[in-house]
């Protein structure tokens, strides 16, 4: 699909929104204003952005413990996201879920997930509903390199291919599952090679090139909407921060991080757009100011929102 300038700038801005959101989360977590665990997406923005740029609101995604980027890219509201991280009643989950469980079913976001490999079977279910109803919706399952080894993920890929479900398995290979490098968790170099085990197309893309991701996911989505079944797309990328905030990354060296930071997906798209004359300094500044403003609002919304009342613990268990 040819990309309009607007769409390109939108993708550029979405990556910036993710980056800035995560940067704020990092600050507030350090400041002790965000309880629990947070797993930041900084450095991987191109994967969620390129993928969700293909999707429509009616399409589904299942996310992971590292889900903020997916949610933002799929259209999540920064205010309610930030409020949820702060544990406020105005958050997406009324403070019941937190970082690992933010969802927006209206937007097709079936939730971040605290269980590694938890999303695949659920994405199949959403895709099955689309197939059952004869709509052209697709479901994207985001999962990490570590999650690729979980039985649930592999079962999900098999069922999706056996039933030709409209699912796109988007693997975010950032090289590590917490401290465990992919080379120790699996013998294959490319997770995409596993697609053949289920007779589905499998491709490796540069996960820091948002356009490459967009392209690959676009093809997979078209295929899925045609009724030709699932695909596996492995996006090679890297997380700049620790596994969770607080992790000091003793298991990887600075040099590795540096080389990846040079592949900053935002800088790369920015330069591309500048070369093509699509992005000017003014435009860039205004984009960033808009994001900054949006975040200011999200943060003050989160800070000013009330905490849930203790008795709310008992609500929302059953429909």
């Amino acid at each position: 699909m040819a990309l309009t300038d607007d769409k390109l700038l939108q993708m550029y801005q979405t990556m910036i929104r993710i980056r800035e959101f995560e940067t704020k989360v990092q600050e507030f977590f350090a400041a002790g204003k965000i309880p629990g665990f947070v797993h930041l997406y900084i450095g991987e923005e191109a994967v969620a952005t390129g993928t969700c740029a293909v999707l429509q609101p009616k399409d589904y995604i299942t996310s992971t413990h590292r889900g903020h980027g997916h949610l933002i890219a799929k259209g999540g509201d920064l205010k309610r996201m930030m409020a949820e991280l702060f544990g406020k009643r105005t958050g997406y989950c009324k403070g019941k879920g937190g970082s690992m469980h933010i969802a927006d079913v209206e937007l097709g976001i079936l939730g971040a997930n605290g269980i590694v490999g938890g999303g695949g079977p659920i994405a199949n279910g959403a895709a099955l509903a689309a197939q059952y109803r004869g709509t052209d919706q697709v479901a994207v399952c985001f999962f990490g390199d570590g999650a690729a080894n979980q039985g649930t993920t592999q079962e999900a890929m098999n069922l999706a291919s056996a039933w030709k479900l409209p699912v796109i398995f988007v693997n975010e290979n950032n090289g590590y599952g917490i401290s465990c490098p992919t080379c120790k968790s699996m013998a294959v170099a490319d997770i995409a090679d596993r697609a053949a085990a289920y007779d589905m197309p499998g491709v490796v893309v540069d996960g820091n090139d948002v356009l490459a991701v967009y392209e690959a996911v676009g093809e997979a989505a078209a295929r899925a909407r045609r009724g030709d079944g699932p695909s596996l797309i492995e996006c090679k990328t890297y997380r700049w921060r620790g596994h969770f905030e607080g992790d000091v990354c003793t298991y990887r060296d600075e040099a590795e991080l540096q080389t990846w930071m040079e592949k900053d997906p935002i800088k790369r798209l920015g330069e591309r757009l500048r070369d093509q004359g699509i992005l000017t300094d003014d435009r860039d500044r205004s984009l960033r100011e808009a994001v900054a403003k949006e975040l200011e609002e999200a943060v003050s919304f989160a800070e000013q929102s009330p905490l849930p009342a203790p008795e709310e613990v008992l609500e929302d268990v059953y429909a």
Partner: protein
Amino acid sequence: MPLKTYLQAINEALAQEMERDPDVFIMGEDVGPFGGCFGVTKGLYERFGEKRVKDTPITESAIIGAATGAAAAGLRPVCEIMFVDFIGVALDQLFNQAAKMRYMFGGKAKIPMVLRTPQGAGIGAAAQHSQSLEAWFAHVPGLKVAMPATPYDAKGLLISAIRDDNPVVFLEHKLLYGVEGDVPDEIYTVPFGRAAIHRFGDDVTIVATAKMVHTALEAAEILARDGISAEVVDPRTLVPLDSETIIRSVQKTHALVVVHEAVKHAGFGAEIAAQVAEAAFDYLDGPIMRVAAPFTPVPFSPPLEQAFLPNAGDIVAAVRKIRG
């Protein structure tokens, strides 16, 4: 009322709800043309077609996950796990995903799915095909748990389960499949959280579930011969649990025996005993007894399996013990 087996009652409930609501469909291993390992889904594939009666690979996590995702997307899947014993390969999708989504998401999701699965020993199927695991499910907030003991309840509870907007674990007892009882042809529901009193009595309350309801009724007969009048109560659903009916019965009889087929230790009978020991303590004339399986896996050989299973004699002995 027409006589039907427990199995036919379940099959009829599935057929009638599928007829009524196009969003209801079935998924599971060999549930299609084969009709299910025990024949519960026989004829449904022929009647509703491949789209609504789906054979799956052997992949329980993917089955429960597919049901969860489809339910989150608004359908009403009824999935089958061939034996409850297999839940261990797939429990995460049920207890961390389906059961908790609504709460984790702040009440913004509905997961109207049913997981049907047979429990129980008595056919020499041994340790991995004979368990009763209701206590596990009843400990999971977000799940509802039904355990029908009669054909009538099987149909009515299953229809309620399918119409429920929450994930329901529907526990069938494989030895009850052949049991006959009155089952209306028309659609009806048996509400969740309402116990059934199968026999009224004044001297002791026997709370029993699934196949043990029938064993308790046998025991009640025996006791009646000695002039002991037992009230037999079947909770029918463990979540929600009709504590009120149980407690009211104990307030009347002043004695309680709880019976189930699962192993006694940390079994659901403990929950019932504990609730009564808190809420009706002053009405009790004697100790609360539990009759349940010993703390062993289910053995294969018939004499061992019979020794494993609680029987009417055990219940009678427990009642006698209370009455000193």
